[in-house]
């Protein structure tokens, strides 16, 4: 009888070293984003304004609200080397004021967007996933906020709050909170739509079959799949919030103690004939920053949306 030779099986070849590393979703998105020149330009603009806001005291030649031109008869002088963007009616250096305005714009932009998007995500997720009665109530409320003449109500509330709350309290934060509280509706609706779309997918069905709880499905499965939409909407929301704050300040309902670009435009509007530089530069910065966030938002949409992938 022939003896069967037992051959020890070869250990499996460890291929990990040779195998190319898996590319994560974020990696793919980043690769696509890098190719988009417009989006990179947007990011660059935002970086520039962030830099201005972070080092405003070092960049601005004069302290906040200083009136270097006032006592020496240099109020409302045209741009020169001494005053890069000229001076305004009381001799503020327009360049310094524009630099200090960066922080207010970013503060309101990020803050309002954070508030608005928190509400929008919560409403969108709950409404989209639970459906039925809850969805009905939430969506009717959303519709009220959509049809509401947003700017009018915002102005009234700002005026009322500043009339009731003693001066010096809140200020710019009140403006930020009010903008946030009134501008979530459109985004909530979009997120709800996305949730409805994801909810029908097979992997949600599978997860249900495995006995996952509702909370787990919403936060572990649905949320990550609508995250790309949320990121894009947040970026665009920042742009909108900056525009709204500028409009509110322009109408004189902003925080009078803060230095904002909208307020500078309001002052400038009283004297565009005599001093064009008072308004042109602050407005240029509003436009630039809003453009930055819009470009970034559009770029992120192209980079993150899996349906646009080839």
């Amino acid at each position, binding site marked *: 009888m022939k003896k069967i030779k037992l051959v020890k099986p070869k250990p499996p070849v460890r291929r990990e070293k040779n195998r190319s590393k898996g590319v994560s979703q974020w990696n793919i998105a980043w690769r696509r984003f890098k190719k988009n020149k417009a989006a990179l330009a947007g990011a660059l603009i935002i970086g520039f304004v962030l830099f201005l806001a972070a080092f405003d005291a070092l960049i601005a030649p004069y302290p906040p609200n200083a009136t270097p031109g006032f006592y020496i008869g240099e109020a409302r002088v045209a741009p020169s080397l001494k005053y890069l963007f000229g001076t305004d009616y009381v001799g503020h250096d327009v360049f310094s004021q524009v630099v200090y305005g960066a922080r207010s714009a970013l503060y309101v932009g990020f803050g309002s967007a954070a508030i608005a998007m928190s509400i929008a995500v919560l409403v969108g997720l709950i409404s989209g996933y639970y459906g039925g009665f809850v969805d009905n109530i939430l969506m*009717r*409320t959303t*519709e*009220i906020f959509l*049809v*509401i*003449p*947003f*700017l*009018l*109500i915002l*102005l*009234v*509330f700002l*005026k*009322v*709050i500043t*009339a*009731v709350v003693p001066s010096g309290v809140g200020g710019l934060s009140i403006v930020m909170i009010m903008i946030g509280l009134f501008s979530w509706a459109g985004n909530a609706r979009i997120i709800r739509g996305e949730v409805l779309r994801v909810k029908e997918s097979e992997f949600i069905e599978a997860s249900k079959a495995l006995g996952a709880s509702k909370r787990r499905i919403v936060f572990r499965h649905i949320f990550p799949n609508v995250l790309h939409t949320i990121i894009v909407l947040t970026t665009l929301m920042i*742009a909108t919030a900056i*525009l709204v704050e*500028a*409009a509110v300040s*322009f*109408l*004189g*309902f902003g925080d009078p103690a803060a230095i904002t670009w909208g307020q500078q*435009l309001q002052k*400038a*509007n009283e004297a*565009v*004939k005599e001093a*064009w530089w008072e*308004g*042109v530069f602050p*407005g240029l910065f*509003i*436009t630039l920053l*809003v*453009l930055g966030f*819009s*470009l970034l938002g*559009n770029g992120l949409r192209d980079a993150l949306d899996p349906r646009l992938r080839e």
Partner: protein
Amino acid sequence: MIRYIIRRIIYLIPLFLGILIIVFVASRIAGDPVRLMTVQNPHITAESRQALSEYYGLDKPLYYQFFLFLAELFQGNLGNSYALRGGTAVTTLIGDYAWLTFELQISALILSLLIAIPIGIMSAKKQYSKLDVSVTTTSLLGTCIPVFYMGIIAIIIFAYFLGWVPAGGAHSILAERYPFGSYALDGLWHLALPAAVLTFATLAPVVLLVRSSMLEVLRQDYILAAKASGLSDRSVVYKHALRNALIPVVTYVGLYFGGMLAGAPVTETVFNWPGVGRLFVEATTKLDFPVIMGITVFITIMTLIANLITDITYGYIDPRIRLE
């Protein structure tokens, strides 16, 4: 069709009530209406305050006051202004200012649609061409410039440096200033700059919308079929594609119109245009609540009507939408 319209109208009622409640709450947070009403009268006595409070039902509970307000509203009575023109009725005030607001907003809306649709089509027909890139870039920039900044720049260039048009207002004060002595021409002359700026501001998002909607339609199979059957490019684009591409545009017109009306305070302030928007800013600064509520109600109703018309047209032009 009529059933559909009635359903839409019934559907709008809770929306309208919700908005009224929000404004009403704001008006009561602001403080005692009697105090706001009599702020300009230093000689008022405690008794007359009391009498006023009873007269307006302010001693009653809040929900009762709200129903009182509703009852007056449905009789077309919005109360009298606290601070403007010696307590004129709010309806008279709005009546005096609304026409100018409509004149500006509607001319801008129509002009921007007339310009945006052809531009959007051309841009979509030659996607990624030089024309398309410059159109989309300009439009994107247009959506980023605040309308008041655009207004200020336009005033600096066209009113001050070039001197072609007046910088603000709706009419010359002196009759000698009327071009060719005509009041109507004077109105047009004053309308030109605000309408142009507002047109440009509204134009940008509409161009982007028409373009993307057209691109989507041009990708459809039936367009390929139309091309394959030998129809000319012109006929394919204008006869087959355009009709379907305009459907989303129609939906947005209603929304845009509401947005433009709500943005009236800003546009009218830049151009010193005496419409309801500027009236609203003035009233809000003075916490003049009857006027504030009146204008909000007015603009909300206009927005809701615009939405209703949009909904109906939408159902009418898109056979895929069932009107039941």
